[in-house]
């Protein structure tokens, strides 16, 4: 083998050895309903994970009535990542990595802090001590276990952390308890400028008061019309800019007064929309234009140069006919 080939092989080996086995999805995978570690889909091999320095504390009520909503608040401390690095947070029912979402044990996610209903959310600008929330509806009576987990990058390595187990006991509903109907699904997102009017489905409730607040600020009262016979209609104010509104209902009836968790309603800018036909037409036009201009330029240039050559050939006088030789 020549010296040149050995050198080339060594350079290739050096390049291969210098590749990084690190983070597979450094920009995140977007929110979704995922098993722990995305079922292995995000970071490929969990053996490559480093342990996150973050400490996770999951706060929730230890007892909740069946079919009722409750808040799971996750506080993240000792987070050392840059605020520019997105972090991923999971709410899980076990740590097997297979069918371990809250939905898998019968719980229903009613809202998350990003304006959707996912057990995995990605957050940027998150600093140590910050919290995030999920609102879940409890299933049948029983004991349930929850975990929180964190994913983030840093130093070219995927980091992973998991909380301790938290137990929640679901109790049977007492008689005459004013409560949200199990059919009620809160609206979790809307566009800027859009007003929110919805019917609040309740049971054993005579009177409803709704409060709303922006980003944890002062609570204001929303306009509620109707009655228990015809249903309660709630009107939440319009958002003039992208923001996160929270609202909750205070339910009065024969039983003890009940207050629902704060539901999150995210207002986003109007979604992206474009005329698909115009896009495809422009793409085909650009294709034909570039193909046409290239062929035209090359063939015309060649034809012109051929014509010049022929002209030069025609103007050349034959040897011996009037020539000086």
């Amino acid at each position: 083998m020549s010296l040149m080939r050995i050198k080339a092989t060594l350079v290739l080996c050096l390049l291969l050895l210098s590749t990084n086995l690190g983070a597979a999805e450094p920009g995140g995978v977007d929110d979704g309903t995922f098993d722990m570690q995305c079922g292995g889909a995000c970071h490929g091999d969990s053996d490559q994970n480093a342990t996150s320095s973050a400490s996770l504390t999951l706060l929730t009520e230890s007892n909740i009535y069946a079919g009722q909503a409750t808040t799971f608040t996750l506080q993240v401390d000792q987070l050392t990542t840059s605020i520019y690095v997105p972090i991923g947070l999971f709410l899980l029912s076990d740590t097997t990595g297979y069918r371990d979402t809250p939905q898998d044990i019968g719980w229903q996610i009613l809202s998350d802090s990003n304006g959707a209903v996912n057990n995995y959310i990605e957050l940027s600008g998150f600093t140590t001590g910050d919290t995030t929330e999920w609102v879940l509806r409890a299933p049948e009576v029983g004991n349930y276990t929850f975990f929180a987990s964190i994913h983030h990058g840093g130093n070219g390595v995927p980091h992973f952390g998991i909380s301790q187990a938290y137990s929640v006991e679901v109790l049977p509903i007492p008689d005459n308890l004013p409560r949200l109907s199990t059919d009620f699904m809160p609206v979790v997102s809307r566009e800027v400028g859009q007003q929110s009017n919805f019917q609040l489905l309740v049971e054993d409730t005579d009177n409803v008061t709704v409060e709303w607040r922006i980003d944890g600020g002062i609570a204001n009262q929303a306009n509620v019309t109707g009655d228990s016979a015809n249903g309660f209609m709630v009107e939440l104010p319009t958002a003039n800019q992208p923001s996160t509104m929270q609202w909750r209902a205070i339910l009065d009836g024969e039983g003890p007064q009940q207050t629902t968790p704060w539901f999150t309603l995210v207002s986003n800018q109007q979604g992206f929309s474009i005329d698909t036909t115009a896009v495809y037409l422009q793409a085909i036009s650009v294709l034909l234009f570039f193909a046409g201009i290239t062929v035209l330029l090359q063939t015309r240039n060649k034809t012109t140069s051929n014509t010049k050559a022929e002209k030069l050939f025609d103007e050349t006088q034959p040897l011996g006919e009037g020539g000086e030789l």
Partner: protein
Amino acid sequence: MVSAGTLHVVTTELVVGTFALAGLCFGLKLLYSFKILSNDKANDALDSIAHGALLFGLLSLPFAILSGINSAGVNDGGFMSAVLVNKLWLSFAGLGLAIGVLVSRWKVGSSIWDESKTSLIQSSFGMAACGAILLTASAGGKFARGESLLDMLHLPYDLILLMPIWLSVLLLLSGLANLVIGIRANSSQ
């Protein structure tokens, strides 16, 4: 059944690899055009490699575009991001340039490298095709993973240059006319 997303990864790898190779060879041919390089044997080889790689990339490109459209769900919900729109027209621009370069080489033959003007156009347009495809791939990285190798250039992926339909039609007709005139001009010689 292989999903559109997986097929897109495979086909884009083929496209990017072959176009990058073609772009490199066209770049070297450009150096020959400026007489910076002068090895005849390598010069001939570069011509074959550049056009061969471009042809292979061109065959893979429609599959990459179609699988990309399917995996992004454009058929169901339309274009949900400006990045997707830019990816589409950039890949079609690359496709058009590649077709033009290959048709020119086929019609004119190896004498396309005999003159500095045609040689310069062939190399530059070949490199432009490669550039358009690499930009498309970079936009794909931005769309799928939120970052790409060309982030340091701060490219405006969120801006869309969408022409009015009448202008697109005009461009389409002029492109068709150019193609026909170009091919006929060469055939009539």
